[in-house]
Structure formats: structure tokens, C-alpha cells
């Protein structure tokens, strides 16, 4: 059954061991290395090869007891055995163990066998009723062991095995320690020993109670020392509650003892049967019992305990620890340590501390803190070398490229102020604080982004206010928010002919350079002097040289350079640079995957598949109706002189085969208008237009149908908008810029917002506003009212039917801007402290706000690359993120930057586009690197959520086919509990899906955004604890140089800091 049992010191010396079978390998070493040193002692068992190991500590003696058995067996009694052996061994050999000055022989074999036999037998008999005394009770000592073990069996089952025993035990130890100390060889320090023995003289009276209560088995000098206390406990031994204590506290002669034993045997067996129900009760009782002891202790010997305190004789009990550790746990959680891990850690610290003595003048707090510090240091200290460069050198000497695979979850949060509207994938809007995990929001490439997680917090907020060309609304975000900006200024040359004193005329070249290292744009200039004796003989030549030079400048930030910069960095840029940065939005949004409902509705109504022009016609009619139709009727009112509109209505209804009657009608203001009412066809009972309005669910509300918002742009949205504007809009021209002003009647002001959204989604700038005085093209001043102003480059695309409202296509100004993203200037205003709401999305992380402003964050692989390049290594980056759009382009930019930065460094990108098998690309990249003598291959993989099984499988495949030297997990320092989940699941996936005998696991981590977390460094601890792997680097900013080694001391300091 049992394979072996070992008793060893924490120093690693085996005091006693017994092996029952031949032991292969050394499971105890693995236990110590993998579990005990890693501070995972909070766990219960450890499986190594075919063994299952259980262990217990005796901290007061620095001992570890380890039992091992075949893991296929279910040995329930092991914990009992450990506890019994521990108690017995500690009691019997305490003095020998304490004397660490030499090796002792521990004659324990016989005792162990007896204990083992006894426990095994009891176990084999099960928990059946055992009323007879054991037949083999030969010695007094043995009997005591039996009792001890019986008692323990109850303890063991009802609660974690070691705790109650230790707390009692430790008192016994204390006494024994004092008693036996004086005769012992010098081990402690001088001063203490002295006081220990002085104290001893007072001791027996005060503590004999405790002693009897707690020493259960090997008490050799017991019999004459029965006190009142013991009698009391005997008295209520019939009482269920106090059995735990009283069972061990025992009578003086053998006969009594036997009787009591029997009685108790029977009693406990009963308890065993009903143990489940009484579990809680037992636990309580235990604590009560121990509390009793300690109160008595305190009451009886306050002076003594004072002495104990100052002489360092106080032993730590579970009770002492509980409040301190609870506080510590809370503290750790506050520092962002995952809750589970904080609990484990505190358990582990408790296990290591219970029974230890507090040193002189030390409070329990400081002891715990110290112990925690040591534990943390152990956990955070890497157990393998973190010297990447050395590993690379090794690979070099084997003439193969060193491969590093970067894995991680997607993206990082983007944070906005409360109330910021985000465009959802279905075309609706939602406030950022209402977003939930799993929501689909719109990305910048017309595909959806799924929200992976949400966060919120508080910080300095900035308000981004667009100028009047941009969207009407500002948005607020935190200082980490990354602005995606278009740089609008290119290089230019200037002629400085006017001679200044001592200076010849020159051509000056100005350009903006993108500083890749600091992610900053700076303005630079160069002079080209001309004239006799100068570099250039003539002005023209100098100019040409300047222009030639212009194209050669590296990292030129020319027009259309897209700059992703956190707000806080943006604000440090020069005014001129800031002025030249524009926000932009894509021309239009197309909802590829959800559109088509309008088509289907029309199909149902018409009975045939509608053509594109039919769709446009129908939606134009809907537009017209929305603006000037009659609620609940398929009737449109048109001013009588709007001939063009009437003509088009006629044309379109014919196209759709819808019949209508036209009747003249006088309005209240005495204007006459045409009322056009659609009606049923002869051959059809249905009124087509009415049904369309019903299907769109707008018959009674007359709002812009939400379905329309996400429909096909050219066929549905634009005609609809045109229909609305044809009747309700005016075209204005201001200094060559056209814009539409849509002004519904007072009672329809809800339309303003709806039209505004529609226009925004259709590729125009649009804002709702209280218009002051607007000028129509025919110079009619219209009164101020609530209106929508629509402007943009593509206004000519609107298929308006009223000719004078149409924007001429060949207008020079419009031509210039056609097919360009829309850009606008903005200013950033600090609005002070505020709360922000963030979310993480998948894919390329660019999302659209309500007004479609693009937003984004970037990755950290290139920082590592930069460092490697600085060390003169040749690096190949394999673009294996074939999933997230924009990933390859992003890397391309990085590679370009990195190449420009280094003097003679080489970095290349190995890319094969999107959608291909990442594992294959990585494999090709590695062989390419081998062929071309690259030193390092950095594999960039797609960020993925740990729950996404297909993607995790793909990752495991990538890892198993390419077997990279290092697998580095890139995680965020901001995550709390989630870190554990991420890492475990990644590791699990690497293990489960690899199909390898020895699956790989994460070899190290990079923590990003370390600069943003202040002292909440818990994620670092959570991550190292979960994986047992070191944190290789921490990212401390956005630039290439912001990669640092993590300093263990710093983390510990931050974690324990109040």
C-alpha cells in the first residue's frame, strides 16, 4: 500500500525513512522543488510519475513528513498516518531533533510499523462500529498511540488535518521545550537560553493543565499530575462538544484508561458515521476548545506570557495568525493579486508559521510580513535563467535561429468617459458604460468587434473637441487613450532670399520626422545655401537639391501618415505638430453581414426579386414619406410646385407597380398641396407601400427605420436620405463648401437626430444644431430652428431628384477631396478627474465611436525586437497573426521604424498575408531564417481569448510544429483575477491540443502597461505563481525603449507597501 515514508528536515537531511518497494527516481526532491519551494504548500497532494505524495510540516522542529503511495490507490488514511506519525515522532524525539549539532539515530522503525499496522487495519475495517478494544494492545505507549490516532481520525475527516493538532501540539512543545532546555547543548543564543531556564522554575504549576490537555501519547510522567482541569474535561466527555480536547487528556491508571478508551472508541465511531452532518459543529468545537486553552493560559500566567513575549518563546498559533493573515489577504487583493492566489499564499504562509516561535520584540504582524516577504521572493525569483541573450548565443553556436513565440490575449482597453456613444454592429448606439462582454461593436473595416472584457476606473480625463468641420460632439477619454491621427502636413521648401547679415540666401527645407523611438513627431529643417562660393551655385539647383533631399528623409511624417499616440504623449508634441494632426473617420460604414433585410421585405411585397433601382425607388419613397407623409396612412404630401418630385413619384411608383391617387388639398395656411395616396392594385389585395411601411414598423411613428441604418449604402441609405432631403432639406453654399440643412417641422424634431445618424453612417459629416440664420441658395433667410447640418465630400452621391438641391459633381473643390477619409481638426482639453469606462475588443482593436472616430492600441513585440537589434542580432519577424486585419501592416510599420532606428541592424518581416495557416508560415519563416542566417525569429501570433477553442487549437499546433525556444505570454499588468484564468487556459491548451508527449508550456511573460499601475503590481505575482515561470520584461511605455527587466525587490516592496 504505502510505498515509502520519509521524515526529513527542511534543511534536506533525512532523519528517518522507510521504503517498502524499490523507489525509482526521487519523488521527494520533485515534491520539494515543485511544491514546497514554490510556496504551493497550501495544496494537499502532489502527483509525480506514478506516486502520489502527501506531506505535513512540523514547523516548530523544521521537519517535513512525506508519505508516498501509488497514485492509482485511494488511501484515505494517509493524512491520519502523517498526523499520527508526526505527533508521535515529534514527541518522542523532540530533544534529539532539536539538537542539530550532530546526526542522531532515530529508532523509529518499530513504532512506525505499529502505527501503520494499526491505522491500516482500522482503515480496512472501514468506519464500521468497533466496540471491542484492540486485541494487540501490548504496551501502554502503544495504547496511547491508538487513542491518539483514533482521535486524529475524527479530526482529519472533519477538517483539514494538521491545524487543530498543531495548535494544541505547539503548546505542549512550548512546555516541553522549557522543561528540557537547560540540559541541552547550546543551540539557542546565550541570552535567551538563560531566561528560558529561569522561567522554567515557575512553569510547572501554571502550565500543567495545558500540558495534560495537549500531550496525548508519549507522556511518560503524567500519572501523578492530574488536575481539576482534567477532571472537568472528563466530566463533559459525554458531551459531544468537548471530545476533541478531552479524549487526549487522560486518566491516571491503566484500567481507567482502557475503559475510557473503549467508551471513546464507540463514541467516535458513531461520530464517524454521522460526520457529514456534524462537520460544522466539529469545527466550531475545535476552535472553542483551543480558545479555552489559550484563555486559561492567559489568565493564569500573564506575567509568564509577558516573559514569553520578550524572550521570544511565544509560539504562533492558528488563532494568532488568522486575523493578521485575513488582513494580509485583503491587502494583497487590493494590490490586484488574484483572490485565489492571495488565499493560497496566506495558507502557505500559515502552514509555514504555525508552531514557530516569534523572535525577540517581534509582533506577529511583522513576523507574518517577513514570512510573506520571503515567500514572495521565492515565488518571484525565476527558477530558470532569464538571460535570453545567452540562450540566443547558444542557438548561434548550434547555427540555428532562436525562435521566440509571442502569445497573448487580445488587445488592451480603450477607455472613454461615461456617456460616450459607441456604434454597435447593428447600427444602433450604446453608451460606453452600458457595454457588456460579448456585445458586437463596429470596427473601422466594416466588420464586427466583439467586446472581450470591460473595465472602469478613475483618472484624469481629456475632452477631445472637434472643430466645426468635424462631428458635433466631443468625446472624453483617459490619458492612456490612444488617438488615431492623420498627419496632414508634408515637407515643404521655402525660399529665404532676403539677405540677413552675414548670411547668404538659402532654400530651406522643412519636414516632420517621426521619431520611432519616442513615438513623437518633430519638425526639422535643413538649409541649402546658394550663391557664389556656396554649396549650390544657383537658386534653382539648390531648390532641386532640397526637393531631392525631401524624398530621402527617413521616417518622414508626410500627409496621410497615421500616428497612433496616447493623449498624454500627444500633449507633449509641439504646437505646430498638434495643429497638423487631424482626426479622421472612414468614408462610410457598410454592414456587410447584416444588410439585406430591406431587400427581403421588398421581395415579399413585390413577389419578385427586386432590382437595385426598385430598391432605391422604394427607399426614396420611404424617405419622402418620413419627411412629409401622414401618420398611419400611405400618403405623401407634396407642395404643388414641386413638379420634379411629383414626376419622380410617378416614375418610381410605375417602376414598383404601385398605384396611387393624386388629389389637391388645401392646408391650414392656405397653401395648396398634392396628396398622393398609394392604394391597392387591381390584381392584388395588398397595398404595397402600406405593407412596406408596416414591415419597417414605422407606420405609426414616422421615424427613420433602424433597419435602414445598416442596409446597403447605395441602394437604400442614400436614396432614403435623398428622399428626406428632397423635401425637407436646403442646400447651402459657403465659400465653395456645400452643405445640406435639414429642418423638419417643430413637432418632428426627433427626426433631427435620426437623420444625423443616418448621414453619419452614410459617409457624411453631420451634426444636429440649433441653426441661427441659414441662407438658402436663393438667398431666402429662414428662421432659426433645430436642424441637421450635413456636409462632406460625397454630397454629390446623394441621388436627390430636385435639381437645384443637387450638388454639382464637377465642382473643383469637391473633386479634390473625393474618396478621401474625412478629417478634422480638434483640440484636447483637460477636464480633470473623472471616471472612465473601458472595453477590450478582438481583431484590430480599432473601433468606431458614434461619430465614427477611429481608436486604437498597439503591441509590444517590436520592443523586444529593438533590444535584440541593439545587441547586434539579425532578427526575422514572422507575421503569423493572419487573423486580425491590420496586424501585418502594423508589423510592417514597426519593421520599417526599427530598420531606420538601428545603424546597421537587420530586421526583416516574413509575411504571407492573411487567412493562411499560421503554423505553416512560422515553419517557413524558421527555415527561411536558417537559410539566411538570422539569429532570432520572433513569431507574432494573433491575440486570442483563452476560451476560444479553435484559436487555441491553432496556437497549440503552431507551437507543436515549430517547437519555439521560448513561448512568451504577453499580458497586461492591469488584469486581476483574470490573469490566472488566461494563463491556466493557455497552458492547458498547449498541453491538451499539442498531441505531444512532453507538451510545451509558457516559458515566460512580458507584462505590459506597467507604468500605469502604480503599486498595484498583483498581476505580476498572480502570473508567476500560476505558471511558475518568470516575468522576463515589463513594458513601461509606448516607445521602443520602454522595456525593462522586472526587479523582484521592487515588486515585493510594492506589494507589501501599505
Amino acid at each position, binding site marked *: 500500500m504505502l510505498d515509502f515514508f520519509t521524515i526529513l528536515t527542511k534543511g534536506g537531511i533525512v532523519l528517518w525513512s522507510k521504503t517498502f518497494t524499490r523507489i525509482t527516481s526521487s519523488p521527494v526532491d520533485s515534491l520539494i522543488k515543485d511544491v514546497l*519551494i514554490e510556496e504551493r504548500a497550501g495544496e494537499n497532494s502532489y502527483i509525480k510519475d506514478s506516486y502520489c505524495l502527501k506531506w505535513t510540516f512540523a514547523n516548530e522542529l523544521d521537519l517535513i513528513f512525506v508519505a508516498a503511495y501509488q497514485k492509482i490507490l485511494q488511501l484515505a488514511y494517509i493524512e491520519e498516518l502523517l498526523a499520527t506519525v508526526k505527533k508521535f515522532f515529534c514527541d518522542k524525539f523532540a530533544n534529539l531533533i532539536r539538537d542539530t549539532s550532530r546526526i542522531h539515530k532515530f529508532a523509529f522503525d518499530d513504532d512506525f510499523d505499529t502505527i501503520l499496522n494499526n491505522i491500516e487495519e482500522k482503515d480496512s475495517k472501514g468506519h464500521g462500529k468497533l466496540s471491542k478494544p484492540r486485541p494487540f494492545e501490548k504496551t501502554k505507549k502503544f495504547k496511547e498511540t491508538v487513542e491518539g490516532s483514533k482521535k486524529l481520525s475524527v479530526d482529519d475527516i472533519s477538517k483539514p488535518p494538521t491545524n487543530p493538532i498543531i495548535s494544541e501540539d505547539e503548546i505542549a512543545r512550548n512546555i516541553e521545550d522549557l522543561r528540557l532546555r537547560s540540559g541541552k547543548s547550546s543551540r539557542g*543564543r546565550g541570552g535567551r537560553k538563560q531566561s528560558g531556564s529561569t522561567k522554567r522554575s515557575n512553569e510547572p504549576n501554571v502550565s500543567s493543565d495545558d500540558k495534560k490537555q495537549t500531550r496525548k501519547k508519549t507522556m511518560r510522567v503524567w500519572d501523578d499530575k492530574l488536575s481539576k482541569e482534567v477532571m472537568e474535561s472528563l466530566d463533559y466527555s459525554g458531551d459531544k462538544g468537548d471530545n476533541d480536547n478531552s479524549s487526549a487528556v487522560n486518566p491516571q491508571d491503566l484500567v481507567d484508561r482502557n475503559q475510557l478508551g473503549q467508551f471513546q472508541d464507540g463514541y467516535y465511531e458513531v461520530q464517524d458515521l454521522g460526520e457529514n452532518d456534524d462537520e460544522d459543529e466539529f469545527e466550531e468545537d475545535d476552535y472553542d476548545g483551543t480558545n479555552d486553552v489559550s484563555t486559561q493560559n492567559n489568565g493564569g500566567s500573564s506575567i509568564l506570557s509577558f516573559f514569553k513575549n520578550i524572550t521570544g518563546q511565544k509560539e504562533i498559533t492558528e488563532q494568532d495568525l488568522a486575523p493578521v493573515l485575513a488582513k494580509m489577504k485583503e491587502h494583497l487583493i487590493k494590490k490586484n493579486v488574484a483572490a485565489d492566489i492571495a488565499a493560497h499564499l496566506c495558507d502557505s504562509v500559515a502552514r509555514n508559521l504555525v508552531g514557530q516561535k516569534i523572535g525577540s520584540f517581534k509582533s506577529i504582524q511583522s513576523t507574518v510580513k517577513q514570512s510573506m516577504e520571503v515567500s514572495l521572493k521565492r515565488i518571484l525569483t525565476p527558477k530558470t535563467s532569464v538571460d*535570453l541573450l545567452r540562450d540566443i548565443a547558444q542557438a548561434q553556436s548550434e547555427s540555428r535561429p532562436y525562435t521566440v513565440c509571442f502569445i497573448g490575449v487580445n488587445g488592451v482597453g480603450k477607455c472613454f468617459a461615461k456617456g460616450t456613444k459607441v456604434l454597435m454592429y447593428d447600427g444602433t448606439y450604446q453608451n460606453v458604460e452600458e457595454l457588456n462582454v460579448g456585445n458586437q461593436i463596429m470596427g473601422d473595416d466594416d466588420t464586427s468587434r466583439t467586446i472581450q472584457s470591460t473595465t472602469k476606473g478613475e483618472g484624469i480625463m481629456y475632452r477631445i473637441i472637434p472643430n466645426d468641420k468635424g462631428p458635433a460632439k466631443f468625446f472624453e477619454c483617459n490619458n492612456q487613450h490612444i488617438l488615431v491621427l492623420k498627419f496632414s502636413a508634408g515637407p515643404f521648401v521655402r525660399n529665404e532670399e532676403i539677405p540677413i547679415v552675414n548670411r547668404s540666401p538659402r532654400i530651406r527645407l522643412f519636414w516632420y520626422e517621426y521619431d520611432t523611438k519616442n513615438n513623437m513627431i518633430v519638425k526639422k529643417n535643413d538649409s541649402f545655401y546658394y550663391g557664389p562660393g556656396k554649396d549650390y551655385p544657383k537658386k534653382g539647383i539648390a531648390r532641386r537639391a532640397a526637393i531631392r533631399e525631401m524624398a530621402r528623409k527617413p521616417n518622414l511624417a508626410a500627409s496621410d501618415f497615421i500616428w497612433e499616440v496616447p493623449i498624454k504623449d500627444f500633449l507633449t508634441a509641439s504646437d505646430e505638430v498638434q495643429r497638423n494632426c487631424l482626426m479622421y473617420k472612414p468614408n462610410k460604414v457598410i454592414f456587410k453581414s447584416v444588410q439585406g433585410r430591406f431587400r427581403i421585405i421588398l421581395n415579399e411585397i413585390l413577389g419578385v426579386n427586386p432590382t437595385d433601382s426598385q430598391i432605391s425607388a422604394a427607399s426614396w419613397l420611404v424617405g419622402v414619406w418620413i419627411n412629409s407623409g401622414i401618420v398611419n396612412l400611405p400618403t405623401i404630401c407634396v407642395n404643388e410646385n414641386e413638379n420634379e418630385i411629383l414626376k419622380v413619384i410617378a416614375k418610381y411608383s410605375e417602376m414598383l407597380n404601385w398605384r396611387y391617387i393624386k388629389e389637391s388639398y388645401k392646408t391650414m395656411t392656405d397653401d395648396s398641396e398634392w396628396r398622393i395616396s398609394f392604394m391597392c392594385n387591381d390584381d392584388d389585395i395588398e397595398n404595397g407601400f402600406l405593407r412596406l411601411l408596416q414591415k419597417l414598423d414605422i407606420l405609426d411613428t414616422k421615424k427613420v427605420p433602424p433597419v435602414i441604418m445598416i442596409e446597403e449604402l447605395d441602394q437604400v441609405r442614400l436614396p432614403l436620405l435623398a428622399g428626406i432631403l428632397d423635401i425637407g432639406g436646403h442646400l447651402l453654399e459657403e465659400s465653395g463648401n456645400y452643405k445640406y440643412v435639414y429642418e423638419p417641422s417643430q413637432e418632428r424634431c426627433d427626426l433631427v437626430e435620426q437623420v444625423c445618424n443616418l448621414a453619419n453612417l452614410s459617409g457624411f459629416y453631420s451634426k444636429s444644431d440649433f441653426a441661427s440664420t441659414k441662407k438658402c441658395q436663393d438667398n431666402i433667410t429662414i428662421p432659426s430652428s433645430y436642424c441637421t447640418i450635413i456636409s462632406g465630400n460625397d454630397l454629390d452621391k446623394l441621388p436627390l431628384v430636385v435639381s437645384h438641391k443637387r450638388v454639382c459633381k464637377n465642382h473643383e473643390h469637391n473633386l479634390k477631396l473625393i474618396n478621401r477619409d474625412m478629417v478634422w481638426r480638434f483640440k484636447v482639453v483637460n477636464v480633470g478627474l473623472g471616471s472612465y469606462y473601458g472595453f477590450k475588443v478582438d481583431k484590430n482593436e480599432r473601433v468606431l465611436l458614434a461619430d465614427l472616430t477611429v481608436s486604437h492600441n498597439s503591441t509590444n513585440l517590436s520592443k523586444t525586437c529593438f533590444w535584440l537589434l541593439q545587441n547586434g542580432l539579425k532578427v526575422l519577424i514572422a507575421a503569423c497573426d493572419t487573423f486580425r486585419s491590420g496586424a501585418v501592416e502594423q508589423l510592417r510599420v514597426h519593421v520599417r521604424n526599427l530598420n531606420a532606428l538601428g545603424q546597421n541592424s537587420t530586421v526583416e518581416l516574413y509575411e504571407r498575408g492573411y487567412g493562411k495557416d499560421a503554423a505553416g508560415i512560422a515553419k517557413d519563416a524558421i527555415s527561411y531564417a536558417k537559410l539566411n542566417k538570422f539569429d532570432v525569429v520572433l513569431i507574432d501570433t494573433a491575440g486570442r481569448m483563452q476560451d476560444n477553442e479553435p484559436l487555441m487549437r491553432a496556437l497549440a499546433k503552431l507551437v507543436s510544429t515549430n517547437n519555439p525556444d521560448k513561448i512568451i505570454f504577453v499580458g497586461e499588468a492591469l488584469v486581476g483575477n483574470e490573469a490566472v484564468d488566461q494563463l491556466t487556459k493557455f497552458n492547458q491548451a498547449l498541453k491538451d491540443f499539442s498531441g505531444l508527449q512532453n507538451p510545451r508550456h509558457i516559458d515566460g511573460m512580458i507584462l505590459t502597461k506597467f507604468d500605469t499601475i502604480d503599486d498595484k503590481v498583483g498581476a505580476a505575482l498572480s502570473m508567476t505563481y500560476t505558471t511558475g515561470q518568470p516575468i522576463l520584461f515589463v513594458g513601461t511605455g509606448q516607445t521602443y525603449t520602454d522595456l*525593462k527587466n522586472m*526587479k523582484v525587490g521592487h515588486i515585493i516592496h510594492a506589494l507589501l507597501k501599505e
Partner: protein
Amino acid sequence: MDNSTFTLITWIILTILAIIIAIIFNVLKNRSRKDTFLILGLADSGKTSFFIKLRDGKQVQTHTSMKENEGYINLENNGIPLTKVPIHFVDVPGHEKLRFKFSDFIPITRGIIFLVDSSTCVKNVRSIAEYLYDIFSNKDVIKHNIPTLIACNKSDMITALPPERIQTMLENEINKLRNTRTSALDNQDSSITDNIEFLGYENEKFKFEHLENETHFEKCSVDKNEIAEIKNWIAEVYGGR
């Protein structure tokens, strides 16, 4: 009454005095004396066995240490004592996560015995070199020029390498480490200067002779009780104080 109060006060004062003196004495003792020998080395290189062997002359079974073993040992060779007083030895666990403790003992260290498992040296050469690098670049080790004995243990094994081979291997390895360590990234908190030093001479291949502190290589076998050389070295270093 008066008398008894007085006695009590006297007692209290005396006790406090005694405690203070004891503390001062303790502190002084720890601070001033540099007579400790550290037993360092990777896990499984035989530190604890060596420690026990030195102390009891016995062979015991050991496992990976979690705590340091320490003790005062009377050094003797075949019954002849080598030093007059017992010497303080500390066996520091070799596990990567625990070895940082060695630096706590450095201030009171007289000499370092670094055990190397000669039979697995080839496999572990990098780890050994890294540990040695850490030791030699420790600022206290440099400051006090603590003499170091690199004891090539388990020389009785068939696969054991001779100390000379081990020395060259380690020198080569440290040579590489010098470059990678010094070009590592900055530490997170750059205000704290760390003790990564460049060992040996620049522009020259690393040799143990280049180190300020004395280093010796010695062959030994704890199993076969061949540790006389180490004992002699300890006695010499201790005596040469």
C-alpha cells in the same frame, strides 16, 4: 511594602539591562566576526551531504534543501584537529528560488566552498556559471575578496570530469555570460544600481586568475570521503586570517 516595590523595580531594571546587553552582544557578534564558511552550489551537487560529512563524518541520505543548515564544526583530519575553535558553516540551498539567501551571509563570510557535480557538469555548465557569476559579482564578495574554492564533487563517478576541464568550461561560459549580462535591459527601477559587474579584464578572455579574489579548483568526493583537500583549504583560509 516599600522594600518589595523597590526590589521589584530593581529586578525589572536589571532584566531590561540584561536583555539590552544580550541584544547588543548578539548584534556585535553577528556584525564583527567574519568567520563563516558558505557551502554553495547548484541543487543536487552535494552541499548538505558535504555539510553532514564535515560535521559528523557520516553519510546520510538527503533531499533538496528548503532551508539553510548551519552549525559550528570542529574541523579535524584523521583525528587531528585542524583549527583551535569550531568554525561556523552554512549550507545554503541551491535551488534557484532559494539561493538568493547566500547574499545575506556574505557580510560574515570568510570563505566560500562552491560545490560542483563533476558528473553532470557538462549539462549544467550554464547554471553553474550563472550562479558563480552572481557570487563573483556580488559587491560584498568583491569588496572583501572572499576566497573561493570550487570543489568538483562526485569525482568518483565514471562520467566525472577532471577539475581542469571544468575550469575551462566554466571560464568559457562566464566569458559568454559577461557579454549577455552587461547588455541586458535596464532594471525597472533604474535609480537602484545593481551589482552586475564585469568580471575579469575587458578585451581578454575570462580566466579565474583575473578575479580579485582567490579561486581554487579542487577535486573531491563526499561519497568516498575524499574531502581532505577541502578541509585543508578551509583551515588555511581560516588560519590565514
